[in-house]
């Protein structure tokens, strides 16, 4: 009897899953609600679940507040897979994005490597209702890194050198690196190297850094603006074929919010937001453990964007 009713329960569950699932076949499906129109001067900024993005969200917020907007920041909302649909449905209005990754999110085959080419491609590929504003010089590029010891042992300077140790190293990166071009596929295609094993970690986050420190992996995905690189003396491998795209920071906004005033404010920000400044802010939050919001506001004042 118990077994029977369990099966009945499972069957009912399966029915619910299909009923709810309907046509949703990818995670990028937008939610049903089409963003209700909101007052023009209110902005909800969402951020992904890593600290630099949270800080950038607060930088946008601090600047827009000084221009008279009413701003709410929703930090640490999740990964891009989860947040992007929320932008489309109007749960949030604005998101600090990275052009290279965003392009790959929208087009798995996207190959544009530099900021201008990416911006042009993105213009064509962004879903209706979304607008990407001009990008900042600040970049947070993914770089394939090894420890100093590994680099010395195998004489590694560039990704080209990986051919010498094909099949010997352990690759550690986010789960998607296993199947996408900027990962195992591209490294094999472009640099002719393969790996002993692949270890699914995170995108340059605490898992990847811990694994590289501990020696569980040899080659890791690390963000170029990470404040821990110099502390650990990690070595970034050169990428002569430009497999890793540029990753300039750019605000992704719902079109109805992207008026001239907001665009102008973001252009002012772009004049100041360089990679060096980004690394400085990351150092404050990640190493000195200051609050992202405080770091953002202090930076805005220091560079004179907010008085």
């Amino acid at each position, binding site marked *: 009897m118990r077994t029977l009713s369990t099966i009945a329960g499972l069957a009912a569950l399966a029915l619910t899953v299909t009923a709810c699932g309907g046509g949703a076949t990818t995670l990028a499906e937008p*939610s049903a609600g089409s963003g209700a129109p909101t007052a023009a001067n209110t902005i909800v900024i969402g951020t992904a679940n890593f600290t630099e993005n949270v800080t950038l969200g607060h930088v946008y917020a601090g600047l827009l507040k000084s221009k008279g907007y009413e701003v709410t920041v929703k930090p640490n*909302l999740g990964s891009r897979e989860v947040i992007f*649909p929320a932008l489309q449905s109007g749960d949030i209005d604005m998101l600090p994005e990275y052009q290279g990754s965003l392009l790959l999110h929208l087009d798995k085959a996207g190959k544009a490597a530099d900021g201008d080419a990416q911006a042009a491609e993105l213009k064509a590929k962004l879903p209706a209702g979304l607008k990407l504003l001009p990008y900042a010089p600040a970049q947070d590029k993914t770089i394939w890194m090894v420890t100093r010891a590994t680099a010395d042992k195998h004489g590694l300077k560039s990704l080209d050198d990986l051919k010498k140790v094909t099949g010997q190293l352990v690759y550690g990166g986010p789960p998607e690196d296993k199947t996408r071009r900027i990962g195992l596929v591209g490294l094999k295609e472009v640099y002719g190297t393969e790996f002993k094993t692949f270890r699914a970690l995170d995108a340059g986050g605490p898992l990847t850094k811990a694994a590289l420190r501990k020696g569980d992996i040899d080659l890791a995905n690390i963000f170029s603006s990470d404040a821990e690189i110099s502390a650990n003396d990690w070595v970034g491998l050169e990428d002569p074929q430009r497999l890793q795209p540029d990753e300039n920071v750019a605000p992704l906004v719902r079109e109805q919010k992207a008026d001239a005033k907001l665009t102008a404010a973001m252009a002012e920000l772009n004049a100041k937001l360089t990679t060096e400044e980004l690394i400085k802010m990351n150092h404050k939050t990640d190493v000195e453990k200051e609050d992202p919001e405080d770091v953002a506001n202090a930076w805005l004042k220091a560079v004179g964007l907010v008085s």
Partner: protein
Amino acid sequence: MRWSWFPDHADDLSALALQHLQMTVLAVALGVAVAVPLAVLAHRVAWVRGPVLSLTSVLFTIPSLALFILLLPFTGLTRTTAVIGLTVYTLVVLVRNTVEGLGAVPPHVREAARAMGYGRTRVLLAVELPLALPVVMAGVRIATVMTISLVSVAGFIGQGALGQLFIDGFQRAFPEPIVAGIALTLLLALVADVALVGVQRLLTPWTRR
């Protein structure tokens, strides 16, 4: 441990704790609203009981991450999504305890009520449910404590309340927010449990000796 971090962030922490509490209360209240009618049905209609109890326990085993992802296309990246998910996980305890409580009402009590001319609905509302209340409330207490500990999994969709502190601490290799999150979660569970014991006493004066 940087002790000054805690008082410096008292405002943020209390805001998150309040949000945590709101989500818990919403989820458990919704859970009761769904579970009690289901349990009454299962109590009255014998063949419904097995499937209802099994369905709720199967729902309980679905990983929360998958449940949230399933809900995202419908309710978006909102607190609603988190609360619906949390409600689903309260059902197993609430339904089981309500069915048990109703089943433990002595038949002669029920019969006496019928003999006094009570209709079925009145028997349910005036006799069976009040007598089942202690067991139902025991379920509510378990469900509440469980929900308080589960809210943090909604951090995957940015709605983790105190659980947001875990993400922050994890990303920055910073134990202070994590410790604060765990301590406040425990404190919240303690306060909620004591409050529920009080509510139960008020609702069932006859159990006091």
